[in-house]
């Protein structure tokens, strides 16, 4: 969204224009929901938490001074909501032995489609074992529309730190998958 258009939308929301706030929800709901649904372990909580984000946005708009971009401010709220959500017990990962021991994540396959689905399922379960912050970083990085810079602003971290934390998260994910598959 252009800066001018964004400022106008924020201004209208602050004046109590409900249509403007609805437009804001429409504009950000996909990203907010996707980020939350990918970060919290209990998917059934995702909608409630996404609504909480917009409630906080609505309450906070009178104090939003526009120093940060609207999107960055919204990501910050998403991050707070996700990280405050009490982490639930990790989902247990099914211990299914592979056909050949020590096979690689990319190559174990008889029926490719089936293997792909199974692999995707394993990746999801492995992600569930990561700490909340790592899940959030991976979720945000692989969702279109969230740039490293915005993520760094939202988490109040230097850009380099965000990149390092993201690579650490992916490394952790790889190790979980390798340990489980070997």
């Amino acid at each position: 969204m252009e800066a001018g258009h964004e400022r106008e939308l924020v201004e209208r929301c602050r004046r109590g224009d409900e249509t403007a706030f609805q437009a804001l929800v429409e504009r950000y709901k996909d990203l907010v929901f996707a980020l939350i649904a990918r970060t919290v372990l209990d998917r059934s909580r995702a909608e409630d938490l996404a609504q909480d984000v917009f409630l906080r946005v609505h309450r906070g708009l009178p104090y939003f001074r526009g120093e940060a971009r609207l999107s960055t401010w919204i990501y910050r709220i998403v991050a707070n909501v996700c990280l405050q959500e009490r982490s639930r017990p990790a989902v247990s990962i099914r211990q299914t032995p592979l056909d050949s021991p020590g096979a690689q994540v990319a190559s174990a396959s008889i029926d490719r489609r089936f293997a792909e689905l199974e692999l995707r399922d394993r990746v999801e379960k492995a992600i569930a074992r990561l700490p909340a912050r790592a899940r959030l970083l991976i979720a945000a990085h692989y969702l279109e529309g969230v740039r490293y810079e915005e993520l760094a602003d939202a988490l109040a971290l230097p850009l380099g730190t965000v990149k390092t934390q993201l690579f650490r998260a992916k490394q952790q994910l790889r190790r979980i998958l390798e340990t489980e598959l070997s």
Partner: protein
Amino acid sequence: MFCDEVLDAVERIAAGEETPDRRAADHLATCRQCAAALADARAIDVLLRARPAPRVPAQFTSRTMARVRGDRWRRERVLDAGFNLALGLILFGLASVVWMLLNGSGLASVGDDAVAVFRTAGVALARRVAPALPLYAGAALLLGGALAFWWWAERDAAA
């Protein structure tokens, strides 16, 4: 251990954020463990990219707006209650100050006399007005009816 260094960089290499230097490239070509880790990191990157984005539930916007409206209504009520309370406290404070001033200056006895005068006048007025009460009630009813009709017609026109 060179493996540790390479394994540490595998995610950056897979994401294309880092190009392995000559030494690392040679190592990756000969070390099975590191080559496998790089292949895994690449496969995971592809899978993460292909992860379908969760779909927003239908009616999300309307449900969110309903919560926002409810929240605003509640906050306005709290604000109203706070305002009324503050106003009440101010009025009470003012009344207390006036009462203390009257007491202090000996004007309270004058106040008592004034109350007595108003009471007698009120009783006399009520006696005089009592016979005409049905007339007043009828007029008030007519006026109220006309106002209600006007409000109803306006509301219909607006809708």
